[in-house]
């Protein structure tokens, strides 16, 4: 039924599309789960709803209590949307090199936005949020990087939806941010279809981060450690900005799918898996598209010279 009581009932149950036309290997099919149709425009609506509901259930959040969260955009937008409806004020800490669209969406939903230097990457936003949390114990710090409601939301819903719609899945490829999607969907697949191979892709973000004095200042999401992320993975690779942009454009031109740049990275990862299959092995590869392309239009990466677009994708936080 397409009629619902609240927009929050529209979170999840996203569609899967066959994009095998992009596959370099006739023995490998590729399917993509499109999360851009969630009300806040991304996969992060799922964890935003799960984290808020868990905090409400646990008595840590009530109408009027302020929510605090570091986010490069999508989690913040999902949280702000729900917070608005539930009566929570909200502060989002975001690197200043994200797109203007994300900032506008946050402000539209009434969030206070605190900006951190873009050259410190997400580490800078996390650090600032932790400092604000210490200064404001009266605020509710949900902390997606450490909150188990994040992977749990994907274990409870995203994973089962994917296996329901792609029961023949042999490989799962996903991007790494908080690692919540990987952990939740990956663990669900391990529990229910143990032979599925699980791969992660990530941008070479650490190359640019200038906020580190030493490699010891590095950051591994606490949920990644708690959920045994290292043991879950069969492989992990970097996808360079140009490759991400190329596959984001191929999705649009060959499949009509208008997606964000991190989707292009995930597809690039799936293509690599398809290319390297042993001869004669059949595969069904599934990838997650975290969001649509709307929030990245102002970057100009969808048209024009590919190298110029890749250079933009290196400086703008598109993850």
């Amino acid at each position, binding site marked *: 039924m397409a009629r619902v009581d609240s927009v929050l009932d529209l979170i999840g149950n996203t569609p899967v599309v066959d994009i095998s036309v992009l596959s370099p290997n006739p023995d490998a099919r590729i399917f993509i789960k499109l999360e851009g149709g969630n009300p806040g425009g991304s996969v992060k609506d799922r964890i935003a709803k799960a984290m808020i509901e868990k905090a409400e259930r646990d008595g840590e959040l009530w109408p009027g209590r302020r929510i605090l969260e570091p986010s490069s955009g999508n989690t913040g937008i999902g949280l702000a949307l729900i917070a608005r409806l539930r009566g929570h004020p909200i502060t989002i800490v975001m690197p200043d090199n994200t797109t203007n669209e994300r900032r506008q969406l946050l402000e539209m939903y009434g969030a206070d936005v605190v900006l951190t230097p873009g050259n410190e*990457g997400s580490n800078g936003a996390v650090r600032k949020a932790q400092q604000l949390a210490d200064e404001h114990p009266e605020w509710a710090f949900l902390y997606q990087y450490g909150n188990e409601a994040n992977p749990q939301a994907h274990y409870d819903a995203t994973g089962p939806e994917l296996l329901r719609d792609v029961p023949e899945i042999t490989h799962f490829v996903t991007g790494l941010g908080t690692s919540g999607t990987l952990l939740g969907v990956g663990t669900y697949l391990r529990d229910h279809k143990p032979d599925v191979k699980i791969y992660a892709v990530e941008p070479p973000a*650490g190359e640019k981060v200038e906020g580190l*004095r030493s490699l010891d200042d590095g950051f*591994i999401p606490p949920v990644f450690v708690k959920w045994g992320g290292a043991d879950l993975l069969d492989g992990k*690779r*970097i996808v360079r900005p140009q490759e991400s942009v190329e596959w984001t454009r191929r999705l649009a031109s060959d499949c009509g799918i208008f997606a964000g740049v991190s989707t292009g990275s995930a597809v690039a990862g799936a293509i690599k898996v398809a290319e390297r299959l042993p001869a004669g092995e059949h595969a069904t590869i599934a990838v997650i598209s975290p969001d649509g392309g709307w929030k990245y239009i102002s970057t100009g990466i969808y048209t024009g010279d590919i190298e110029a677009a890749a250079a933009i994708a290196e400086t703008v936080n598109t993850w």
Partner: protein
Amino acid sequence: MAVSVRLPTVLRPHAAGQTVVEADAGSVGDIIAGLVARFPGMSGHLLKESGELQRFVNIYVDDEDIRYLDKAATAVADGAELTILPAVAGGA
């Protein structure tokens, strides 16, 4: 032809500001040991006292994370690229 080693911002001061340095082909472990011998300032950043890689260091050979290849024994051939990156928070 040698192996190209891409350094993250935080290690460049120890290599006179270079972004990429060359190394001989070999295992990842050999290449890191050679790097530390040439640029001693990198030692504490890359290796624990036991000689193992630090926890927050990620190493990729041709963009594949060596943890899921053969770890320090992963072979790096002439013409390949070894990338050293700090573990950082992802966008979210």
